[in-house]
């Protein structure tokens, strides 16, 4: 049931983004703010890796931003 909810959520979001994407976004010369270091997805990969390892070893969930596997025998 939950998987149906997730699939439905993804479809709705994808449809919303796909239908709205032509009116969303910016021109190439309007990317000044988006070009900032802190605006990049995965801007701090080392911080994220250390945090992910900590949470992977202490919680039952992992992944989401990327793949869930931990490659660690700690959990």
């Amino acid at each position: 049931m939950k998987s149906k909810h997730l699939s439905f959520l993804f479809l709705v979001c994808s449809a919303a983004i796909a239908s709205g994407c032509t009116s969303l976004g910016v021109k190439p010369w309007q990317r000044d703010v988006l070009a900032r270091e802190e605006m990049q997805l995965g801007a701090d990969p080392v911080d994220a890796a250390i945090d992910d390892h900590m949470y992977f070893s202490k919680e039952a969930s992992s992944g989401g931003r990327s793949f869930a596997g931990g490659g660690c025998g700690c959990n």
Partner: protein
Amino acid sequence: MQLKPKAPRPTPANARRRLIAASCALLGAAARSQQANVAPADSGLLEDWSVDSALAYYHEDGRILAIEPVVNLAKVFADGQSLNFNGTFDSLSGSSPNGALTSHTAQTFASPSGKAKHAYTTAPGQLPVDPNYQDTRIAVGGNWTLPFTRVDQLSVGAKVSDEHDFFSVTVNASIAHDFNEKNTTLSFGISNEFDSLSPIGGAPVPGSDYALSQKNAGKTKDGVGALIGVTQVMTRNWLTEFNVSVDRFKGYLNDPYKITSIIDSAGNTTGYEFESRPDQRTRKSAYWENRVGWNQQLSTALSLRYMTDDWGVRSDTAQLHLRWTLSNRDRYIEPTLRWYRQTAADFYTPFILSATVPTTGFESSDSRLGAFHALTYGLKYAQKLPGLGSRAESEFSVRAEYYQQTFNERIATPAALQGLDLYPGLKAILVQVGWRF
């Protein structure tokens, strides 16, 4: 007499052409500048690589201590290809909970190795922990990204992780397509993980009597995962990402060092058995991240995640990074807040009542499968410094986090166990220094 040609009257069309020309000139300059950053072949070692490194110190209250140096090397080539290598070394020591229940009487346990000198006794009222826990881990990984059209790129990666009782190989591949003037990116990726377990003393037979120490040779588990993602530029200062992922693991999914106490109706511990988890698990998650640049100084990154699996665990995660940039963008402060909660796995139980026959045949007292919520408070300070060699700048940072788990559900316990802290939770600190150049 020769007259100078009259300058064209500035019309909207002219102005637009001038703007386009100026933009092209700027873009050209930026491209030249980017190419200039690609160092010549005779440059020194790592001269044309960006290096992101950190040393982390992690300490749980009364339990594990870990020291973790991490390094990440990245290079973007002039043709758009990029390479990334990362390496991690973990050194862990301290005390690790073995899963047994706190008791009013002293409890003596054999070590996983079975060596008498490593046997340990837990005092009354104390959480049973193996005080001899020690491990080291080395992990290396690499990733290659290859644009194969102006709007498509392929990325492949691999990671190898080695511990004395665990070995893991992960490979992944993903493809991404840009459209809508590169304001929208669709991506799809798959991963495959192969794990080999060789626990100290052998892999226990799930659910077997701890006193009999029934163990087998090494075990394996493997997993496959898939991720579909959409990244969308919403406005000039708002970027959003939405991912859906699924992964499935099969094999020996038990923690070989975890046992569960068996108690009688009076609350006395009568024995222990090794935990017994299902041999497969499927997880699904949805992840949504938003990055917003509010003004020159302030930006936020808010991420939300929902995860569910067929073990009965459901979790919600919300994390907020707030970056406050100071001075002439040469330093920043970044407070972080993370909230997490999870429900318990269907087979989680802190103890087994000897009179009860498990209906599923599965049980685990591993607190990581219990119902709890967790909070993380963090603060990072980073300072830009002069660069090294041809580099424009470097960055030094220091970061600290405090993590606390608090258990939610509490199972009714026999009167004899009243007064014992059966759900001690977890408190941990993380301190990290980083250097990026």
